[in-house]
Structure formats: structure tokens, C-alpha cells
């Protein structure tokens, strides 16, 4: 909570830094800001071709597969992108931390917010894709789409917690970055992003292990809203929010524990 208050107090600075992050990314490119729309569009186009004509995986409730995959992948890209950038943000801003008396919490927060902005910019593409598939009779339009705003809350909390922890740990331990890469890989394949847990034909032990993955509930609530067109059960919603809150709490605790030695370690 104190972290929230701190970030709120410095919201102007966070906003300016997020802008810088986004501006700087597209400044030297021809298409500029359209990249943030084009990126998810290209991704979707590739999936549509590959998973319609080359492979065509089948899951109950997973049709059409390219859209199923896309709606699971979008929040994951937000999470993994922010965590990967988070592992570098404090190191990159080291000279600033050593010079100015500004709260270090700002930098991981900026990473999360700028990835969130990218994510939100990709949502219209997803929305349009759903309309197109309704129009072409591929699937029914998910009227629960606006619930994505609620489903994003546990994602933001979970991402925030992970980025806080990873950012400060990678300053103190230089091999953290490599480890994060591997962990993200593991997490990706153990989350129901490219598959769904219901239709999975695997040994019961593996199924149980996969169900333990904390991110599973987050993927499900998000995909239920934007793809399946149903409201997830209260139990899943509760799990998702619990995961988000616990992740945030843990992450900010880790950050606080290493905060004092941060400038020395950078």
C-alpha cells in the first residue's frame, strides 16, 4: 500500500518517464507509433496462417485456434515483456539512482506501466479480430469483452510484484537475468496459453502440477472474458485476485529488503 501511495505522489514523473520510454522506442522508426498496433496485427496474421493451414491443433472450446492462442498470448506478452525489461531497468538507470534523490520504485513501475500501455494498444486488434470472426461465422462474439478491464487487475498486480522483485534482485545478483529468461520459458509452457487445461490428454500427475501454476487462473479469467465469452466461476476469479495480491505483496517486500543497498550495488 505504501508503494501505491509513493507512486501516486510521483505520478507526474512516472507519466513523463513512461512517455519517454514509449517515445524513445518509436522515435527513430518510419511508422512511429503505429508499430504498437502493427506488432500484434502481424503476430495475429502469422498465427492465423500457421495454425490454420500448417498445424491445426484442436481443443474443446479452442476454436478458432489462432484467436484462442492470441487471446492467451497477449496478457502473457505483457507479463513476460515487463519482467524481462524489469531485470534491466535498475541497472540501466544506475547513473540516475547514484545522482538523484528519487525513489527507486519509480523505475520498475515505469516498466510495468509502459508495457501495460502497449498491451492496451493491442486490445483494439483483438476486438476487431473478434468482430471479424463473428462476421465470418467462425465464432460468436464474446459479449463479456469489457470484463477484460477487471481481468487485467490481477495481471497488473502479478506483473508488478514480479517486476519489483526481479528488478532489485538483478542489481544484486548479476546472473538473475539469465535465470529470469529460463524461468519465463518454463512458466510459458506450464501455463494454459497454447493449450487449455480442460482438453488436455496428459497423465493425471502432470495435470495436477499444471493446475498448480499460479498464472493459470489469470490466463483463464482473461481468456474467458475476451475469447470464450463467459464469466469465469467466482472461485477462479478469487484465485486470480489472490495470486495478484500475493505476488504484489511479495514483490514489494523483496524490493524493500534490498532497497537500502541498491545504490551501492548499482
Amino acid at each position, binding site marked *: 500500500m505504501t508503494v501505491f501511495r509513493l507512486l501516486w505522489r510521483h505520478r507526474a514523473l512516472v507519466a513523463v518517464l513512461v512517455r519517454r520510454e514509449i517515445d524513445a522506442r518509436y522515435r527513430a522508426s518510419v511508422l512511429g507509433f503505429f508499430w504498437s498496433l502493427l506488432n500484434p496485427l502481424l503476430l495475429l496474421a502469422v498465427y492465423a496462417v500457421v495454425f490454420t493451414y500448417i498445424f491445426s491443433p484442436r481443443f474443446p472450446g479452442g476454436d478458432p485456434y489462432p484467436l484462442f492462442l492470441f487471446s492467451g498470448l497477449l496478457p502473457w506478452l505483457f507479463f513476460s515483456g515487463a519482467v524481462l525489461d524489469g531485470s534491466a531497468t535498475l541497472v540501466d538507470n544506475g547513473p540516475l539512482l547514484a*545522482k538523484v534523490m528519487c525513489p527507486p520504485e519509480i523505475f520498475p513501475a515505469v516498466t510495468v506501466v509502459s508495457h501495460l500501455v502497449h498491451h492496451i494498444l493491442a486490445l483494439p486488434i483483438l476486438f476487431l479480430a473478434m468482430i471479424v470472426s463473428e462476421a465470418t461465422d467462425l465464432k460468436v462474439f464474446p459479449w463479456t469483452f469489457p470484463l477484460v478491464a477487471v481481468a487485467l487487475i490481477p495481471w497488473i498486480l502479478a506483473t508488478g510484484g514480479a517486476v519489483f522483485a526481479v528488478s532489485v534482485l538483478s542489481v544484486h545478483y548479476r*546472473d*538473475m537475468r539469465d535465470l529470469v529468461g529460463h524461468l519465463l520459458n518454463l512458466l510459458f509452457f506450464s501455463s494454459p496459453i497454447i493449450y487449455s487445461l480442460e482438453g488436455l490428454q496428459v497423465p493425471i500427475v502432470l495435470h495436477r502440477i499444471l493446475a498448480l501454476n499460479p498464472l493459470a487462473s489469470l490466463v483463464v479469467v482473461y481468456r474467458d472474458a475476451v475469447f470464450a465469452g463467459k464469466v469465469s466461476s467466482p472461485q477462479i476469479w478469487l484465485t486470480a485476485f489472490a495470486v495478484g495480491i500475493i505476488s504484489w505483496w511479495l514483490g514489494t517486500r523483496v524490493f524493500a529488503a534490498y532497497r537500502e543497498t541498491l545504490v551501492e550495488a548499482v
Partner: protein
Amino acid sequence: MKGSIRFSEVSKVFRWRGSRSRRETLKGAFFHRWFRRRGTTSEEHVALDGIDLEIVPGEAVALIGPNGSGKSTLLKLTGGILKPTSGTVEVDGRVTALIELGAGFHPEITGRENVVINGMLLGLERREIEARMQEIVDFADIGSFIDQPVKIYSSGMYVRLGFAVAVAADPNVLLIDEVLAVGDEVFTRRCLDRLARMRQRGVTMVLVSHDLDLVTSFADRALYLERGRLVAEGPADAVVARYRSDAAGDTDRGHEEGQARQVEGDRRWGNGDVEIIGVELLTGEAPSRMVPGGSSCRLRIRYSVHNPVDDFVFGVAWHRADGTQVSGHNTELAGFVPRRLASDGEVCCVYDSLQLAPGDYLVDVAVHARNGLAYDYWCDALKVRVTSEVEWPGVWSPPHRWLSTGPEWEKSGAKDGTDQKDG
């Protein structure tokens, strides 16, 4: 009071986490904890050890000492960048650190946007920065480059812009760590001029420098640190002299001081009826050794009377270190007829506009009888550095401007002689 700094019993211990530490990596940390439950204390480094310190608003203090003596750590503690391991640091007012100029500039975005971000990081509101933008651009002297991405800047432009933002933050306390060494000569001069103007406004300054000439001209007081402890503290000249002799390996203190006194004997004479006990240059309220060219200042002579006299003249002579006479004036030439000098007091010579070219000047101060008999004649009583944005040659730097009818030219936006702007 805004601008005061107080350290009480401050210690700072660093734990090595650099290349020397086993705990640099997660793998290392894991095995370290696994096999050696008790961490070794050899990984600790005491950077500051029980420092007590008080700096009053408007004071300029220099930190000197060999490398690794804790100067920069002390500066960072003052700036709140580091936290003390024990003890308390109290700083009142807005602190700006000139440590790494331009740190945090993002190469891809324009100078203007970087200025906004840097200013906000330094604690300014967005509209405050926009209000000062022109001033910042002018000082950094980068013209239309302000709207270009910072990555195409020369290193000089980069540093100038960094300096301009930092001083525009209008701090109560300014921390300066060797930054004046990075720029070219022109930049250093402009910075020094700017700092001198800020001192006039009463900004507290803490300087870390290995340039001892700069220390003596800049600071009122110096702190000499060695291995995290305060070795000596006092007037900048005295502390610098001590440091110089230590650095030269001369530990025979008595000998050194005797020599110093003898040197002083050659440069000061008189029968002692009246003694000059202090000479100070006042810019604004505070004494300073640095004065921006063209600004106003006062030379204050404090004296003490041992035998009352009826015949006396107070005089001041300015000259350059190479012996060039610059100016001399005394109370007799100014029309004061002496009656009696019986009690201690002070005499001030006020300069409304010190029209000297930038450089170092030495001031002789004397009190003598009209026939020349010296009560106290003190050569080189004071060394003054006059600063300016432009390196005017010579000794006289009058406000001036150019008028012309024939030539065609354009102006670079830079200074002319009338440009004696006030901070």
C-alpha cells in the same frame, strides 16, 4: 534554516558486493550460504567513521583528502543518495547534486524533453521547468540543438545541458563533485561564474575537488578527510596547506609552521600600533573568495588598536599574481582626514561594480600614517578570483557594446560587454 547541513556521529560501512564478493551471483550466494553460514567480516569497508559536521546556510565548504578517503560518500550522504549505517544526517531545503552531469539523459529523445524529465527528477514541477527553459537553453548555449535527440550532441553540449538543468533547479544546497574538471576551459569558467552568483544568493555549497587552487578560491572552510575520519577542519587556506604538506610526506609539523610564519614576516610589517585582524570580501551577506565580474562587493577590514593614533590611513591595493598593478585606493585620497583611532572596529571599501577582467587578484591591505609609517602593512592579505562567462583579456572589464554602420554581420547570441546579468 534552509540550506543547513548537520551530521551527527555518521558512519557508513560498505559491504563488498563487487567482483570480490562470492555473493555476486545467485549461484554464489546459494553456495556461500550453504557452506559458510557465518559471513566473513573482511568483506566490509568503513567509508566514513563517526563524522560530526555542521554547515550553516550560505557557507561554501570543500572536502579534500586522498582518493578513497570518503569525500564522495560524504557528499552522497548529504544528497540522500546513500543512507548512513549509523548516525543521522539532517539537511534542510532542496539539494541538487552536480555529480554526473547529464546522467539519465535518454539518447533517443530531444534535449528539451530530457530537460523536463531531468528537472522533474530533481524535484521541479513541470511548469517550473517550462518557465525556466529559455534560461537553461541560453546557459547551455546549444541553440536549436535543444530540439534534436541528445544522441547527436557533442560531449560538451551534453555536459553543459546537464549543468544548466541542475543549477536551474534552484537548490538551497548544491553538491559539486569534480564536475568542473570535465568541461573545456570556457565551460569551466562559465560554471564557476554561475556558482559564484549562486553563492551571492546564499546557496550552501559542498565541493569535492583535487584542484587545491580551486578549493582555496572557492571555499570558506575545508574539511580534510583521511580513511573516513576528519583529520583537520578550518579555514580553507590552512587546511589545504596541511594537506599539501601531508601529501608531500612532510610530517615535521613544527618546522612547517615556522617556515610559514617566516614567509609571512616578509609580506607583512609595521609597528603594531594598529593591527589588521581580518580581511574579507563580502559578496551578498557571506564572505567569499570568488566574485562575478561586474557585480557589487565589499572589502571589509577588521582591525584592533593597541596604541591609539591620531594619524592614520586605510589603504587597499589590487594587483595580479605576476606583479601587474591594478588599482590602489585609500581613505586619504578619498578625502578622509583622520582625527583619532582608539577603538577596535572595521572599515569597508564598497565596490558598486567590480569591473575587473576574470582571473586571480591579490589584495594588499594596510593601515599606516600619512607619511607612510606602517602600523600594519599586509601584502597579499587576500586572494580573490573574479569570474566571468567570457574570458575577457587584460585587467579591466568595463560594460561596453558595439555600434556599427558599415559591416554586415550576425550575432551568435553570445554575450557582449553589457551582459553582466545577474544569475
